[in-house]
């Protein structure tokens, strides 16, 4: 009996360890397949064409610059919405709201995180963009602005939950110290709590932004999908097209192994590297903050 117990324990332990390591394997596999299918692009498309301003695959124009600027303008727009509203909501939930309000608001914000992006895109088409077209008197409501607003909404839950965690982990004694010195609660929030939680808040912002760069369905449905270079301020009111939407819209129609196919994977590779950079930066902020805390404590 003891012998069989040892064997079972041994096998289960091995399985559990393998599961833990599998996370690394998956990231490596994802990167490997993106490179495998995406890298041939560099042999098939001239670098000059790839960095061009014209995306028109049928005639072999593979300039990804308009797609990058499209992603960029929408992400910036979404950030301008999600960061203030997300941090504001986090501050409200963690510092101001009475307990019962908090108990209602937190699940509601999580609910927003659970709304499928197609549903938001669907409402974007039927409600938001007609409204924007009439209200701003545009030729079409399917614009970068519509995408930014909805993407902002999609990133808010990420920003709120991470920022709220950070605010929550600020020791209560910090706040009590500030109150004892005669600071109002408002002053305490601005001068003590938020600064103390700043690395966590920064992480929240980065993760929120990362979320918006990667969002696909909503932007594909509401941004009008025009691959034009969006570098002017007015571009926010015209249709654009993002990297993610391009992959989603065109991958279904290309022949496997064609140049177009490889370019779409190449774009996927760029997206992967962007998210890798954002996430490693975000987590290193957290690590560094923790290290500093350990140094202070020891």
């Amino acid at each position, binding site marked *: 009996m003891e012998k069989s117990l040892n064997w079972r324990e041994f096998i289960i332990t091995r399985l559990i360890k393998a599961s833990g390591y599998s996370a690394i394997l998956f990231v490596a596999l994802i990167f490997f397949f993106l490179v495998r299918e995406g890298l041939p692009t560099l042999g098939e498309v001239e670098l000059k064409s790839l960095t061009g301003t014209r995306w028109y695959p049928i005639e072999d124009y593979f300039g990804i610059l308009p797609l990058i600027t499209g992603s960029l303008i929408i992400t910036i727009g979404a950030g301008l919405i999600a960061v203030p509203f997300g941090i504001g909501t986090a501050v409200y939930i963690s510092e101001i709201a009475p307990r019962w309000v908090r108990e209602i608001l937190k699940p509601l914000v999580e609910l927003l995180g659970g709304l499928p992006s*197609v549903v938001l895109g669907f409402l974007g088409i039927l409600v938001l963009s007609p409204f924007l077209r009439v209200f701003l008197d545009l030729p079409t409501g399917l614009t970068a602005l519509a995408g930014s607003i909805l993407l902002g909404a999609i990133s808010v839950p990420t920003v709120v939950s991470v920022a709220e965690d950070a605010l929550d982990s600020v020791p209560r004694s910090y706040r009590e110290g500030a109150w004892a010195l005669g600071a109002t609660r408002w002053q305490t929030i601005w001068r003590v709590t938020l600064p103390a939680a700043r690395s966590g808040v920064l992480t929240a912002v980065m993760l929120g932004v990362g979320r918006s760069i990667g969002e696909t369905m909503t932007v594909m449905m509401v941004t009008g999908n025009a691959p034009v270079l969006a570098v002017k301020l007015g571009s926010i009111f015209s249709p654009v097209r993002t990297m993610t939407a391009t992959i989603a819209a065109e991958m279904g129609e290309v022949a496997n192994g064609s140049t177009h196919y490889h370019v779409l994977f190449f774009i996927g590779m760029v997206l992967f590297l962007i998210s890798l950079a954002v996430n490693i930066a975000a987590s290193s902020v957290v690590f560094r903050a923790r290290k500093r805390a350990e140094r202070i404590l020891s």
Partner: protein
Amino acid sequence: MKRIFTLNRHLSQRIGFTAITLMAFATVVPIVATIIYILIQGAPSISLEFLTAYPYDGMRAGGILPAIIGTLYLTVGTAIFSVPLGIAAAIYLSEYASDTPLTRTIRIAIINLAGIPSVVYGLFGLGLFVLFLNFGTSILAASLTLSIMTLPIIISTAEESLRSVPQAFRTVSISLGATRWQTIRRIVLKEALPGILTGVILGLERAAGETAPILFTGAAFFLPRLPGSPFDATMALPYHLFVISTQVPEMPIQIQYGTALVLLVFVLSMNLIATFIRSRARARRQW
């Protein structure tokens, strides 16, 4: 002088609090409004036929049964792969791993998995499962793709839940002659179960609502029948909503809202169950 100063401080606090409160409500009210709006717009089109019939007339009439069943299949398929793997990985991180470079690499990998755009998962699924492993555009390929996407959500919530079980339980169990795995199975997992379940449901909720990862791995535009095996492609609610709201001309608006409503109810009921389990477990917890 001093009085004015105090007055100002309190005035600025009042203004600040009001502004922040308004912001919070500006965030939350549209969420509620969105849900209510879809409920109202979609409710009239819900009928037994809508839920149990096949679409016909180019999907402009009939029901959405294959999409509902397809989403169920994908959700269950995702669960089969991601739940055991995710929980096992969480057990590794919480119970076995010490702070080594390897463990830190695993954590960074998980954070990165969580951040990879959903459409990139779709590309990966196409490259690995559909083409390389030759599963074809199928439920299997789509479920596997969704599983890997869901994994970080399950791992991080499950790990948090495992870590919240007091260390003393483990020490006591070991001191009574339990092995590490016996301790985990009989005490730690049992106590962490509600939290793990919450994480699993939230992960699957995400999988059920996603479109981009299944676009080129398993979703079918239209199928006049239900999929017969894991190697068949399938319709799915989110993809169906995308199709009928952007790809089909002269699509009756009622069917669109009806489909959105069914998808929303599917996903939100999972969310409510998760929230319920969590709050009940918190209330009952005695340590």
